[in-house]
């Protein structure tokens, strides 16, 4: 669709993009600002980054976030791929609802429900409860990506494989899986990113002691804001940028909605 684009459309779109990026630029720029206040530019410094790397709490939170994200990505990718496969292949009614509901409802609902659940089964809140919670809501995202990928795959290939003597499992292993692998990996990266980023559900299932990066940022923002927050934010931005680049390289169609 190559129509003449009216000026007002350009202008409003440009304004929208500015709206989207200006705040982030502010954060990044001020992470190098030689001042405690995020008010005026004083001078360039990397002191905040240095301080960050000596911040024990922050490092611990980062480590936790990473471990949780890795475990979540692994488990939710496996379970999400299985769910996506079943949702695509068979007519089921219950599974799609359970898979997609965590994504559809406000996060706070899942957070408090899981909080009560964990307490009722006498589980101490901590890294384990956080991980279990993350897996629950990441399954849906992986399932959606895998299902979309399966939908784009030629069904007759699986039939051809079985015709050639492959059992359903062999057909999946040699034909389906290689062909959907980009989608699976994209799903894994998405689960990883969502887990590292998650705030609300983590907030309720973390308990008193456990800390993740978002929780750490939250308490810093609420209590004592220093540009260390800017520094960690910038680093997280870079990490996300890296992950997205990798994801789109592996699964070029990931963001493409025009099939």
């Amino acid at each position, binding site marked *: *669709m*190559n*129509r003449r*684009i009216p000026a007002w*459309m350009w202008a*409003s*779109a440009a304004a*929208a*993009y500015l709206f*989207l990026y*200006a*705040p*982030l630029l502010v*954060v990044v720029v001020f992470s190098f600002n030689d001042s405690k206040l*995020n*008010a005026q530019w004083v001078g360039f410094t990397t002191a905040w980054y240095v301080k960050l790397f000596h911040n024990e709490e922050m490092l611990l939170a980062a480590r936790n976030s990473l471990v949780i994200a890795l475990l979540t990505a692994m488990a939710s990718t496996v*379970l999400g791929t*299985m*769910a996506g*496969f*079943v949702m695509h*292949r*068979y007519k*089921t009614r*219950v*599974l799609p609802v*359970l*898979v997609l509901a*965590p994504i*559809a*409802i*406000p996060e*706070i*609902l899942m957070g*408090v*429900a899981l909080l*009560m*659940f964990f307490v*009722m089964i006498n589980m101490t809140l901590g890294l384990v409860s956080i991980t279990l*919670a993350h*897996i*629950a809501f990441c*399954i849906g995202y992986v399932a959606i990506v895998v299902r979309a990928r399966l939908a784009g795959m030629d069904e007759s290939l699986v039939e051809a494989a079985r015709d050639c003597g492959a059992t359903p499992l062999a057909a999946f292993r040699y034909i389906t899986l290689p062909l959907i692998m980009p989608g699976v990996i994209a799903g894994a990266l998405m689960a990883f990113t969502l887990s*590292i980023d998650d*705030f*609300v559900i983590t907030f*309720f299932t973390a308990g008193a002691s456990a800390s993740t990066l*978002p929780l750490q*940022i*939250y308490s810093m*923002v609420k209590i004592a*804001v220093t540009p260390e927050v800017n520094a960690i*934010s910038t680093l997280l931005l870079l990490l*996300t*940028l890296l992950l*997205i680049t990798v994801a*789109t390289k592996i699964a070029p169609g990931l*963001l*493409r909605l*025009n099939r």
Partner: protein
Amino acid sequence: MATDNKGKWLVGGPPLAYLIIFFAIPCLLMLVASARAPGEFGGLAPLVADSGKLNLTLASYARFFASAIYLQLFGKSLWYALLTTALCLAIAYPLSMLIAASKKKYRDLLLLLVILPFWSNFLIRVYAWMIILGPEWALARIINGVLGVFGAEPVTLMFSPFAVIVVLVYVHLPFMVLPLYANLEKHDPALLDAAQDLGARPWQRFWYVTWPLSLPGVFAGAALVFIPAFGIFAVPDLVGGTDGIMIGNVIKQQFLETRDWPFGSVLSIVLMVAALGLTAVAALAARPRRNAA
């Protein structure tokens, strides 16, 4: 095929089991919890009383519906969510139209640019606005400067409903852009040409052709914005101050501070019903009808 159903359970079983345990059951627990009595030291009272009877009560529901405050708070949250949705739509629509009208090779890039900020941490995006809306910052100073010229009182942008709305729009904008774009991209340009050929002016072409066709996308985007915005708590918590509180804040408060779990559950259930119910009603209303007009 005979072996098919076995495969369905073998492969679908584990995710199903996981989600039943860590999603369905907690939701059911919440439903039951809303009808239980609060525990002495917070949490929940035992389900079975010493007498052996089930300790269930609808007192928490009664309390909710009887109070004006909570209902008002729901109303306010609903209003914020609707406003956010409307603003997102207003900003996202021209943007989506632009991307859909662009040459193919630019579209992916433009979309990526929209999504990129979304992939950054949610709190960072809120924090960024805390800086921009902060009193020492340029924006506040400019506005207050202008107001000062007119002799009006200086306003604080932060810790206000204004800040809440701005940040809510900011955080949810990509959710509106993507489905809208996906829909607009499929529109047949020949339809607009035909309308023009038949004498329709630009705004008429938009209103009679583009808008109706885009409704499914509008609705999808609206749902993706409205439902999360309705139940959000982190944004009002950080930038809302006392004026900008939403129902999410109260739920958090009930569960973590006041520890009145039954009441918190009631609020949560009402939130879920309200959010999903309104969305379902809107879905029915948005169904394509035979358009005689």
